[in-house]
């Protein structure tokens, strides 16, 4: 009789069997690779304002041309990509962290805490995020990447809270939780040892969704002109391109690179989350 495989190996084998998940991770990996290896291949100092002759078409020293302020677009793209990813990851982690905590408390301990948390999440979900974001962002004096992440994170916790709460509710009734309870394990230890580990797949899946929606909110704010004016992000590249009329003036190399990069990131995130969904929800495992 062979030794049973470790849960980690099992999870890995299951993940590799999902082509969607693998493809999504490959896409995201490629984007991260560009951000990591890019500075070694292309001089990112060229992204400074006025370091190049402005409005040059692609070619020669500037493979993707230069923008109205004399930035090299390729260098700007290499610097902007990790910034956008950073905002998404940061806001996703904060939002998910708060969401898991509140979801666990609400789902496991029920009672007043549950009522308060559930109402708060419902109310906050009803108020459109973009409205609050616009209001805060217009009233902040100078926007930075870190501040942006915090503002977006402030609206990224509701969805994870609801997902985790619902899963916790169903998990606390499972037989193995009862057995643990009969064995005298209670309270926080029960949550940490019996419930949290079983929530991990859901947490992973919500994490991808949280990052994706945080990035979407960020880019929306940036496209409205409320982003960090002094930092380079993909959304700000699009904003400046739009601001200087690049689309109507047919200067495609101003807007196409950040648009393609964003499309790759979002499609990568969608595939990753669809792949994870299939692992998490066995019901969706059908041929497609």
């Amino acid at each position, binding site marked *: 009789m062979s030794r049973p495989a470790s849960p980690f190996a099992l999870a890995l084998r299951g993940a590799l069997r999902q082509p969607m998940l693998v493809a999504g991770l490959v896409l995201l990996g490629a984007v991260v690779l560009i951000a990591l290896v890019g500075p070694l291949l292309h001089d990112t100092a060229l992204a400074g304002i006025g370091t190049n002759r402005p409005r040059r078409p692609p070619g020669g020293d500037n493979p993707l041309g230069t923008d109205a302020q004399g930035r090299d677009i390729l260098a700007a793209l290499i610097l902007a990509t990790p910034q956008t990813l950073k905002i998404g990851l940061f806001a996703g982690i904060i939002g998910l962290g708060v969401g898991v905590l509140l979801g666990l408390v609400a789902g496991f301990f029920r009672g007043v805490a549950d009522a308060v948390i559930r109402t708060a999440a419902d*109310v906050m979900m*009803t108020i*459109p995020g973009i409205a609050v974001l616009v209001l805060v962002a217009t009233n902040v004096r100078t926007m930075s990447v870190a501040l942006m992440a915090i503002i977006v994170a402030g609206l990224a916790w509701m969805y994870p809270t609801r997902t985790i709460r619902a899963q916790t509710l169903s998990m606390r009734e499972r037989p193995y939780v009862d057995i643990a309870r009969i064995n005298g394990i209670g309270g926080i230890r029960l949550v940490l040892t019996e419930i949290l580990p079983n929530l991990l797949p859901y947490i992973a899946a919500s994490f991808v969704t949280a990052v994706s929606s945080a990035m979407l909110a960020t880019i929306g704010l940036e496209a409205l*002109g409320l982003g960090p004016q002094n930092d380079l992000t993909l959304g700000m590249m699009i904003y400046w391109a739009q601001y200087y009329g690049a689309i109507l003036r047919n200067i495609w190399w101003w807007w196409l690179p950040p648009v393609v990069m964003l499309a790759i990131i979002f499609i990568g995130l969608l595939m990753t989350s669809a792949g994870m969904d299939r692992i998490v929800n066995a019901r969706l495992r059908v041929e497609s």
Partner: protein
Amino acid sequence: MPLAFLARRLGMTLLVIVLAIGINFLIPRAMPGDPIEQQLNQLAASSGGNVGDVQAMVASYRARFGLDQPLWRQFLSYLGDLAHFDLGFSLANYPERVSQSIAAGLPWTLGLLGVSTLISFTIGTLLGGLLAWPGSGRLVRLVGVPLLMLSAVPYFVLGIVLLFLLALAWPLLPVGGGYPFSANLRWDWESARMIAVHAILPSLSIILASLGTWAIAMRGMIVSVLGEDYIMLAEAKGLSPARIFFGYGLRNAMLPQLTHLALTLSHIVSGAILVEVIFAYPGIGYRLYQAIQAKDYFVIQGIVLLLSISIAVTMLVMDLIYPLIDPRIGARRT
């Protein structure tokens, strides 16, 4: 409809509205810096310091706008103004009132989003159903799967690409606006045609970008319906595949889709702000963008408040109508 459900739901809506008004009132006042002082300082700097005593002017403006009153009195007068739909004046286009600006933009946004959402819902739901249905051909999969991918791309990013392809590279459609700049709108066919032509590109970006969401949800629903006995019975009776698909498959999988549609329609005002920006479409979103560019604080606040309250109210209405469509819901929710 159970009374407890009704009370809870009304209380919830009230809470949302109060919170939205509170946020709208407090955030601008809680932030460091004084917009009046900032504007006047800017004015002083740009005119070489010849505007006189800035501090005295700040004080007189503050008294004028009631900003020297205690916070609770400011809030009460704010509520009083809101009750008359008085949202103040636009700072950028002075004689215009904020409420006029919003009223002028609202029909454009409602029309664009309403039509686009319904088209996208219909096509997406059908596509999702066909994708999960065993009898549908390879073609559906060939066309459908790339469309699902598009749903990951934000609306306005897709809008930029469509604008480039269909209005510039191949100048088929107008680049932006809701109607030709020089035209006068009347109630005639020519105006309607112009409005429709200008709406095609923004609408197409919304449809293409949201189609996938409907399709993915519907696919999941159809998959769970497929195993039901009534499908097998319908097949055994020898009904035509089309009849089984529409009458037995789609119909039974439709309910969650309709809920989703109701939810989406409640976000109709805030749904595609950025698409309007890209296409300079004269709706609420484009007005918000212009107000942000011009630092027109009262217009920004007015639009933000409209977004919050419209969602709260439509969601309440949907929730109250819903038990009429599906009697099981009302009972379960309490």
